[in-house]
């Protein structure tokens, strides 16, 4: 059940990410829906679930894109592991925390992907452009992650999979 729900949620996330238009004036930055979902699994679920989520999200992203198989899984695992390390020292259910981690995830994921793609000679892009893309992705991640977190926690609660605290929206207002 847990796995099926996760697969469904990630599939929806992948489709939404593919359909959302690219931010063309910011080096083609894309809203990191799947990265935001990995942040959710890193903050709200155990390590094993995070692992599966990171691998599956990566495979879906690579399957729907032109990135070689496995690249996104590596970046998602690394990013998820980094977020999970700070899980116990932050207020994991605060919307502001989600925004910060969303921005962090967007930035780290873009930079890691750049390193992997450049290392494999698949990308010829100026570093300034990549930095612009990473910053724009971070911005999109910050805006998106609280929404994704809220959606995923509602889904998990409805399915009775986990007792998740509500995101504190009042803190943002």
């Amino acid at each position, binding site marked *: 059940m847990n796995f099926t729900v996760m697969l469904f949620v990630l599939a929806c996330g992948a489709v939404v990410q593919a359909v959302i238009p690219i931010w063309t004036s910011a080096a083609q930055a894309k809203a990191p829906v799947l990265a935001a979902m990995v942040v959710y699994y890193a903050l709200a679920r155990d390590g094993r679930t995070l692992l599966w989520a990171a691998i599956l999200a990566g495979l*879906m992203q690579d399957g729907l894109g032109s990135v070689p198989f496995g690249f996104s899984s590596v970046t998602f695992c690394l990013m998820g592991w980094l977020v999970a390390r700070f899980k116990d020292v932050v207020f994991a259910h605060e919307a502001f925390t989600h925004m910060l981690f969303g921005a962090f995830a967007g930035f780290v994921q873009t930079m890691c992907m750049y390193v992997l793609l450049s290392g494999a000679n698949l990308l010829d892009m100026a570093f300034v452009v990549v930095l612009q893309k990473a910053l724009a992705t971070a911005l999109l991640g910050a805006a998106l992650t609280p929404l994704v977190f809220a959606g995923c926690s509602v889904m998990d609660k409805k399915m009775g999979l986990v007792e998740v605290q509500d995101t504190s929206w009042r803190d943002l207002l």
Partner: protein
Amino acid sequence: MRERSVLIWLVLGAALLVALNLPESLSQRGKSAIREFLAPLQSLVSGTTTRAQQLVLFVRGLGDLARDNQAMSGELVRLRSELRYLETLEQENIALRQQLGFMSRPERELIPGEVIARDITGWWHTVRLGQGSAENIQTGMAVVTPEGLVGRTMQVSAGTSDVLLVSDPTCRVSAFLPRTGSFGVMTGRGVTWRGRPSMRLEFINKDAEIQTGDEVLTSGLGGVFPRGILIGHVERVYMDEGGLYQLADVEPAADLGRLAYVFVVAENADPVEQLFRRRDSDPQGGR
């Protein structure tokens, strides 16, 4: 507990190493499987957003319907008369080609395609169509809109196909400028800081008198893109650093940022070499 966690991470590491080193064919098969799995959901979401956009456009354009209708009636009359003129020219062309013993150009089928998604990562300039090998689309076919060239098909599964746009830096097209008769190689340049797709025509003869606004068409050389498709218009002309060739910035004719429906050109271009080969083997010329 800790040992188990380490074991899981080790297994994961090994699995990722395997995934990263998969043979190309296996990797493509895996990707196709994921695409096929997600294609229905993707088509549903994409179709819903497209219909919503069309509804908004329809509601916004209600007031202009009468004016649009009048303008289109005028356009229809003009196009009909142009068509009649072109039909006579085509007949004349066929007759002249027959007299000279030239081959007739093969008919090309246009397969309509609907854009269901853009590149999920934004690293490349690609779009995904909701049609694939089941509709006879194959890798390496040209993709066009009524405005001009869009790109070529890259990876094709049964129900989807990825199109590499002409604005992508890895996309190269053999092009020529009909006004001057000069040839060059069109290379994608990504998007400008304003978000406009841009391209550059390279290796143009340095003596050719290129002007701003000149049309750039596909040359048909190379075997992927049929001859004579409009790629775009020249925006700026300058010499390369070595002074050996001219370069020209080109604005794409097709609106690459807002593609919704496209056509895949089913038959590949008629490469010049093939034409000669066929003519050599067929002393009568023509078919």
